[in-house]
C-alpha cells in the first residue's frame, strides 16, 4: 500500500524531463549537498596551506602576519573535511573498512591515507614545530587549566635552547616543503574521484584534478583574506596593508590560472562537442543557469578578476579603505563562486541521465541529513573550531617568540608571528571591513 502511494506521488510530481534510467528517477541525487561541501572544505584546507607555504617555503615575508592564521584555518577545516563524507555513507559504522581493507584501484580508497598523512604527518607536525617554543613559554606564563593545556601540547619537550628552536624551524621548513605536494595530492585526488568516472561526461575529464587544485588554491587564499580581515575587525586592529596587497596579488594570479584552466575545459568541451554535449548545453542554459553562469562564472570569477586586476594596475590611486572593501568583496565573491563551482560539478553531474536523453530536477530540502540546515551547520562548524583555535593559539595576551632565522619588522597587526613584544601592545587602528 505504501509502495502504491509512493508510486502515485512519483507519477504526480514529474521531477524529470525526457528519458532517465528508472534507477535515476529518485527525488534527489545520490550525492547531494554533503558531497558538495566535501570538496569545498577540502579545497579550503589545501588553499589555506598553500597560503601558509608562501611564507615558509617561498619566503614571502610580507605575508608573515597571516602565517599562523592560515595554518590554523587549514587545520580547523581539515578536522571537518571528512564529516560530510562520513555522514553521507549508508553505513558510516563501516567507514574504517576503507582504511583496513582498501581496494587499491578505487580513487576513494586512498582518501583515508591521504587524509591521515596530511593531518598527522604534515599539518599537525608543522603546527607543533612552529608552536612548540611558544607552548613552553605560555605554559609558564598562563595559570590554571589553560597553562596545563599548553603544557600538554608541549608533549614534555621543554627544551627551548637556541639549537632546539633552530631544529624546530628547520623541521617545520622541511614539512612545509613536503606539505605543498601533499596539499595538491589531497585536493587533486578529490578532483580525481570525479574525473575518474568515465560513465559521466560532465565529470570524466582529465583536467578535473587540475581544475580542483586551482580552484582550491583560489578559495583557500580568499578564505585567508576573509579570516584576516574579519579577525582584524573583531580585534579592532589595523590591517597590514602591505600583507593584504600581496595576499590579494597572489589571489589574483591564482584566479587568473583557475579561470584560464576552466575556460580551456569549456572551450574543449564546446569544440569537440562529443557525445552528451547537447545535454550539457541544456544543463548550462537551463538547469545550472544561475549557479554556473551567474554564480560561478560572473560573480565568482569575472567580477573578482576585474576588481583584483584593476587593483594590480591602479593600486596607488585607490585609497586604503576602498582597497580593503574591494579585497573583502572579492574574497567573499570568490568563496561563494567556488562553492557554486562545487555545486555545479557535483549536483550538475547528477542532474542529467546517463542515457543522455533526459534531465532531473533537484529541490533542496531544509531539514534532514542532506538539507540546507545540515549544510549550514557543516559550513559553520570549521569557523567555530577556528574561533577556539584563535582564542588558544593567537591569543592577544600571550607573547609569541621571534624567529631567529627570519627577519621582518612586525610593525602592525600580526596573526602570524610577532617579533618580540606582545601583540596587545600593537597600535589599534581602523581596520573595519
Amino acid at each position, binding site marked *: 500500500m505504501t509502495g502504491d502511494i509512493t508510486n502515485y506521488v512519483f507519477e504526480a510530481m514529474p521531477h524529470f524531463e525526457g528519458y532517465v534510467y528508472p*534507477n535515476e528517477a529518485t527525488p534527489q541525487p*545520490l550525492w547531494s549537498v554533503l558531497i558538495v561541501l566535501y570538496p569545498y572544505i577540502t579545497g579550503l584546507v589545501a588553499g589555506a596551506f598553500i597560503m601558509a607555504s608562501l611564507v615558509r617555503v617561498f619566503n614571502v615575508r610580507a605575508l608573515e602576519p597571516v602565517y599562523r592564521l592560515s595554518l590554523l584555518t587549514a587545520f580547523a577545516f581539515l578536522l571537518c573535511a571528512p564529516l560530510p563524507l562520513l555522514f553521507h555513507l549508508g*553505513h558510516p559504522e563501516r567507514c574504517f573498512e576503507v582504511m583496513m581493507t582498501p*581496494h587499491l584501484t578505487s580513487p576513494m580508497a586512498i582518501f583515508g591515507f591521504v587524509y591521515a598523512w596530511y593531518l598527522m604527518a604534515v599539518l599537525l607536525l608543522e603546527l607543533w614545530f612552529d608552536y612548540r617554543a611558544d607552548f613552553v613559554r605560555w605554559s609558564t606564563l598562563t595559570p590554571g587549566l589553560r597553562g596545563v593545556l599548553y603544557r600538554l601540547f608541549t608533549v614534555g619537550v621543554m627544551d627551548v635552547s637556541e639549537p632546539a628552536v633552530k631544529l624546530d624551524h628547520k623541521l617545520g621548513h622541511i614539512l612545509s616543503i613536503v606539505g605543498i605536494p601533499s596539499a595538491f595530492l589531497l585536493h587533486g585526488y578529490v578532483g580525481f574521484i570525479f574525473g575518474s568516472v568515465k560513465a559521466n561526461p560532465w565529470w570524466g575529464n582529465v583536467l578535473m584534478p587540475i581544475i580542483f587544485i586551482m580552484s582550491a588554491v583560489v578559495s583557500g587564499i580568499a578564505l585567508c583574506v576573509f579570516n584576516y580581515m574579519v579577525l582584524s575587525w573583531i580585534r579592532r586592529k589595523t590591517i597590514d596593508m602591505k600583507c593584504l596587497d600581496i595576499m590579494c596579488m597572489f589571489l589574483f594570479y591564482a584566479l587568473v590560472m583557475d579561470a584560464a584552466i576552466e575556460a580551456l575545459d569549456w572551450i574543449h568541451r564546446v569544440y569537440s562537442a562529443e557525445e552528451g554535449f547537447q545535454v550539457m548545453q541544456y544543463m548550462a542554459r537551463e538547469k545550472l543557469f544561475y549557479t554556473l553562469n551567474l554564480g560561478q562564472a560572473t560573480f565568482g570569477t569575472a567580477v573578482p578578476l576585474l576588481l583584483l586586476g584593476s587593483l594590480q594596475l591602479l593600486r596607488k590611486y585607490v585609497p586604503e579603505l576602498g582597497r580593503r572593501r574591494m579585497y573583502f568583496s572579492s574574497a567573499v565573491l570568490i568563496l561563494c563562486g567556488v562553492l557554486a563551482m562545487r555545486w555545479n560539478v557535483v549536483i550538475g553531474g547528477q542532474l542529467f541521465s546517463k542515457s543522455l536523453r533526459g534531465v532531473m530536477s533537484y529541490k533542496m530540502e531544509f531539514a534532514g541529513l542532506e538539507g540546507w540546515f545540515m549544510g549550514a551547520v557543516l559550513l559553520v562548524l570549521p569557523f567555530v573550531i577556528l574561533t577556539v583555535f584563535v582564542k588558544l593559539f593567537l591569543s592577544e595576551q600571550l607573547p609569541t617568540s621571534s624567529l631567529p632565522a627570519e627577519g621582518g619588522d612586525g610593525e602592525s597587526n600580526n596573526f602570524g608571528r610577532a617579533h618580540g613584544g606582545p601583540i596587545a601592545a600593537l597600535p589599534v587602528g581602523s581596520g573595519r571591513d
Partner: protein
Amino acid sequence: MSKQVSRRNLLGKIGAALAGVATLPLARTAKAAVQKVLVSTPAPKGYDPTRHKWVMAIDANRCIGCGLCAEACKTENHVPDGPFYRTWIERYVITKPKPGSGASRGETFVDCPNGGMHGFPELPVPKSEIQHSFFVPKLCNLCEHSACVQVCPVGATFDSPDGAVLIDPKYCIGCGFCIQACPYGCRFLNPVTKTAEKCTLCYHRITRGLKPACVEVCPTQARVFGDLKNPVPDDPIQQFYQNNKVQALKPHLGTDPRVFYAGIDKEVR
C-alpha cells in the same frame, strides 16, 4: 664508486626472483581461498564458481514488452517499491522523418513506466508515423572490465570467477561510488539496507541449477541464459551467438560488456 656486484650476490637475487615467480600461483590460490571465506554470497555449500561462466544475452526482436521479467525480478529479489530496479524494459519509438526534411529518420521517444513492470501505455505517436518500435530489456551488463568493481573503495563489489558481478551486502559501506560509475544505470542504493544493489543473475538460483527469475518467466525467450563452460546439447546461448550479429551497449567506454544484444538500434544506450 659503484658497488661491486659479486656473482654469488647476483645468483642469490635471481634465485629470489624465481622463487617469487614460482610462489605467485600459490599466492593467487590463497587469495581466492581467503576471498571465499570473507565474501558472503547466497551460493550453496560445495558450489565451485571456477567451474562455470554464466552469461545472459538479449534478443530484442523477440521482446513483446509484457514486463513479466521486471515484475518477477522485483518479487524474487525483494527489491523495494519505488525507482529501484535490477532489470527493466525500455520502449523505443523512432518516427518517420517529416516529408521533405531530408532526414533519414524522425525523433526517438524512449519510455519505461515503472520499469515496464506493468506493460506500456498507448504509443505516443500514431502508428502511421512510426518507422521502428521495439523493446529493450536491460540488466547488469556483466562487464569484463567493470567500472563499478574498479571504484569500490572497500572491494565489496567484485567479479566472481563464474562471470557474475556481485556485491557483499555485509561489507558495502553505501558510498554510492559504484552507482555513479556504472554507465548503464544498473545500480541503486537500497533504501532499506542502505547498500548498493544490482542484478546478480539471481545468484541464489543459478548456483542451484535454476534459471534467473526473468529468464524463467519470459514468454518469448527474449532472454537467453547459459553457462559457457558447460554447454548442453542445443545450448540456447550458443545458438544465440551463432544465429545473430550482436552488439554491446556503450562499447566506447571500454567496459567490455558480456551481455550481448541482438536486434537493437543505434539509438539504444
